[in-house]
């Protein structure tokens, strides 16, 4: 069962400490929001995200997933901003009250390029970082084990929940419940099954908490980890550098008023 989007590949990107990747992602987020220039976002995509995706052998999956997420956003953005941008002066085409303006398109480009950059960066992060490893790395840095447990178990339990829903549906079909093909009909059929499914999950949660307590989940001992999280001096240094870069991206435009 695949519980997350994680792609199990051997690559230098996969081997990076999850915290390094997390910091890199956050740095990009900060830069892209602090520096409102479309070509900065473009440069990050071309100069950082795409090479990383190639090295990680995740290019295809990154492209297909991102397209699914981005296409509707971009279409809406271009239509809405390009056609109805209030400050639009340079009219390229006109239909009644709607006017396609250069200013509108530029504005859409500004927003769009940042969204593209953010989506690509976060999808690549998810594709190359195992949530378990991320939680392990964060717990090692003092994040509460309970918080880390909640995140990782939710990620795993969602597919478990889906499996159980499928199982219950199957069992009801085996008792003569007719399920027609259309998604709407399926949803209708599933509705009465949802209540008990949720109730069942609550009983499960209770039992699971007993089982987890029995395995020392409430222990105050400092947690150890079976599988060490890889790290290196180079990564530590680069994390600090990225932090400096992010701070600079915020401070420089304010202080010097460059933009």
């Amino acid at each position, binding site marked *: 069962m695949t519980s997350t989007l994680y792609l199990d590949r051997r690559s230098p990107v996969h081997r990076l400490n999850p915290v390094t990747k997390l910091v890199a992602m956050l740095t990009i987020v900060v830069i892209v929001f602090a520096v409102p220039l479309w070509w900065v976002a473009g440069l990050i995509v071309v100069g950082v995200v795409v090479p990383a995706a190639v090295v990680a052998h995740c290019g295809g999956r990154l492209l297909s997933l991102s397209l699914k997420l981005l296409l509707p956003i971009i279409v809406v953005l271009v239509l809405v901003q390009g056609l109805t941008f209030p400050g639009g002066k340079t009219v390229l085409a006109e239909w009644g009250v709607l006017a396609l303006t250069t200013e509108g398109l530029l504005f859409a480009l500004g927003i769009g390029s940042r969204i593209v950059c953010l989506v690509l960066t976060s999808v690549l992060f998810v594709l190359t970082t195992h949530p378990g490893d991320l939680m392990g790395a964060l717990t090692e840095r003092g994040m509460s084990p309970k918080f880390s447990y909640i995140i990782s178990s939710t990620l795993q339990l969602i597919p478990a929940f889906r499996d159980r829903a499928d199982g219950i549906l199957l069992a009801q079909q085996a008792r003569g419940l007719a399920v027609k093909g259309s998604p709407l009909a399926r949803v209708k059929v599933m509705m009465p099954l949802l209540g008990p499914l949720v109730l069942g999950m609550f009983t499960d949660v209770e039992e699971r908490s007993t*089982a987890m307590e029995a395995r020392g989940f*409430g222990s105050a001992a400092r947690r150890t980890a079976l599988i060490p999280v890889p790290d290196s001096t180079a990564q530590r240094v680069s994390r600090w550098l990225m932090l400096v870069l992010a701070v600079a991206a915020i401070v420089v435009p304010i202080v010097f008023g460059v933009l």
Partner: protein
Amino acid sequence: MISLTDVSYAYPDAEALTLEHVDLEVERGSIAGIVGASGAGKTTLAKIIAGFIPHADGGELSGTVRVDGRDLSTGSLVDAVSVVGLVIQNPFNQISGAKYTVREEIAFGLENFGTPRDEMQRRVDEVAALLRIEHLLDRSPYALSGGQQQLVAIASMIVLRTPVIVMDEPTAQLDPAGTRMVFDVLSALRETGITIVIFEHKLELLQQHADRLHVVADRSIVLSGAPDDVLADDRLAQWAVGTTRYVTAGRLARERGLLPPEVPLPVSFEQAERVFDRERSVR
């Protein structure tokens, strides 16, 4: 090792007691089998021995529960679970959900207690070999069958090496070969001084492996004794507890005058072999 004296318990908001005047003694390094009809209060008893009652479930607990010389009702749940391990019925709900391989799943408890990494690795490998699940170590715990999950749940508990382990029907989803292996493992653990309390319906195996049997009925422990004595007791049927087929056959032969009443009822295969063979040779 385990000593319950006059223990009574009612769940929060319950009108009636679930258990009443329970006395139970389990020696260090022994296997205690607990049998009883479903709904007799076995799961509640398991939670009391493991300290989950009253720490997690609340309710009214009276009497004393001492495990390894300590009163479990004082102190915290963490204190209790570092002495008593608990394996619950449903293996699916014992998967932490936070781990992506069986290997990490088994280590989960060790991580919680802060066990050093190299010791963890050694202990996980050891327990996996013991339960013959080495081939599952790199699989996802969710991709296993019910029986395999049950073995992982057992491994996840015995890896902690608590002095006492309580197991609520740990072999329900296992086939006979798997069940036999689990009982063999439990016998081996007993040899290392670990005390085991097992709630089971599989009587022939309890007869072979348990040092004592205790019958739960009418909200209390109504009979305790050596497996041979307990399984031959005439009152088992009235408590909705079965027995081995050897006893059933012996009793039937006795009723028909084929076995003299002074011959003890055979409880095990070996005893039955002697009883039914001797009878033939006598004639």
